[in-house]
């Protein structure tokens, strides 16, 4: 029943003609954590969004590294090199080991094949400092639609969703165990299935 409700919720998102605002149970906790770290550095794996940069820079006070993996996905899809994504992900990030305090994954793992997902999660865990946090969103169903979502931060507890055309589709639904396997070594802090059909998952890396 709960799953059916979740599907219904996602459907309403998928067909919404306007940009809807959804509450988030984990965003505030994530941002609060970043806020608490002096001189924090954050990786945002989504497309650049000016208002998010302003919010995180001025309000949360962190340094933001924009690493738009959705653009990378599009490039690989258009060049027919999606099979090379695992190697690409393994060499994608120039940042050093344990060099960032937080990672905003958004829903990028929904678009990756298992090998690319594992390569990416390995890199994110490598770059995360001890005690650091990672926030990811996971859809409740796959889709044939080739589009991505821009998540606009409205405030500490709300996100506005805007869809835009991309070259890839959501490949499959990742179950909780799949997600846990991806981030093996990190400690799960929060996992919440939202009415929007999105599962929000917050991890942190154990302190040394």
């Amino acid at each position, binding site marked *: 029943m709960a799953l059916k409700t979740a599907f219904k919720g996602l459907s309403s998102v998928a067909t919404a003609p306007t940009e809807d605002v959804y509450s988030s149970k984990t965003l505030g906790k994530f941002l609060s954590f970043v806020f608490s770290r*002096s001189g924090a550095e954050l990786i945002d794996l989504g497309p650049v*969004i*000016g208002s998010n940069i*302003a919010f995180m820079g*001025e*309000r949360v006070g962190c*340094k*933001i590294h924009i690493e738009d993996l959705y653009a990378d996905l599009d490039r690989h899809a258009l060049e027919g090199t999606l099979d090379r994504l695992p190697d690409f992900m393994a060499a994608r990030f120039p940042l050093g080991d344990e060099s960032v305090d937080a990672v905003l994954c958004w829903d990028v793992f929904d678009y990756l094949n298992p090998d690319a997902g594992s390569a990416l999660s390995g890199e994110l865990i490598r770059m995360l400092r001890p005690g650091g946090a990672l926030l990811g969103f996971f859809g409740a169903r796959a889709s044939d639609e080739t589009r991505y979502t821009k998540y606009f931060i409205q405030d500490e507890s709300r996100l506005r969703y805007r869809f835009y055309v991309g070259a890839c589709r959501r490949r499959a639904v990742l179950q909780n165990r799949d997600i846990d396997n991806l981030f093996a070594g990190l400690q799960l802090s*929060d*996992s919440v299935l939202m009415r929007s059909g999105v599962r929000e998952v917050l991890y942190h890396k154990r302190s040394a």
Partner: protein
Amino acid sequence: MNEELASIGKSIVINGELTGSEDLTIEGRVEGKIDLKDHVLTVGMNGRIKAQVTAKSIVVFGHVTGNLTATEKVDIKEKGSVEGDIVAPRVAIADGSHFKGSVDMQRKEGANGDRPLSTVPSLTDLVRV
């Protein structure tokens, strides 16, 4: 007094170090280093910059590759493009622009807005669901 604004036309190519004590608009190509300290640099729609840039404010309509440092603000307009790291207390990035790099807005202690984020529970308070 009718003071003309300094500008570099779109047929001009400069390689080297560019310094000045007035606002400047660049429509041409500049490679090297740009230092305007207390003034505004505007990279026009035709401007192509490959340089480390320092200014009071930097407005980008064209293309910039290089790190930008501003004491007041960096403003990337729609269709503007920046590939490099930005250091500035205020940064505006318009929808439709391109940006690749990092942004450091150098928040000072206590300057965190009207509602402290610290009122939200910390990670250590969280419980597995």
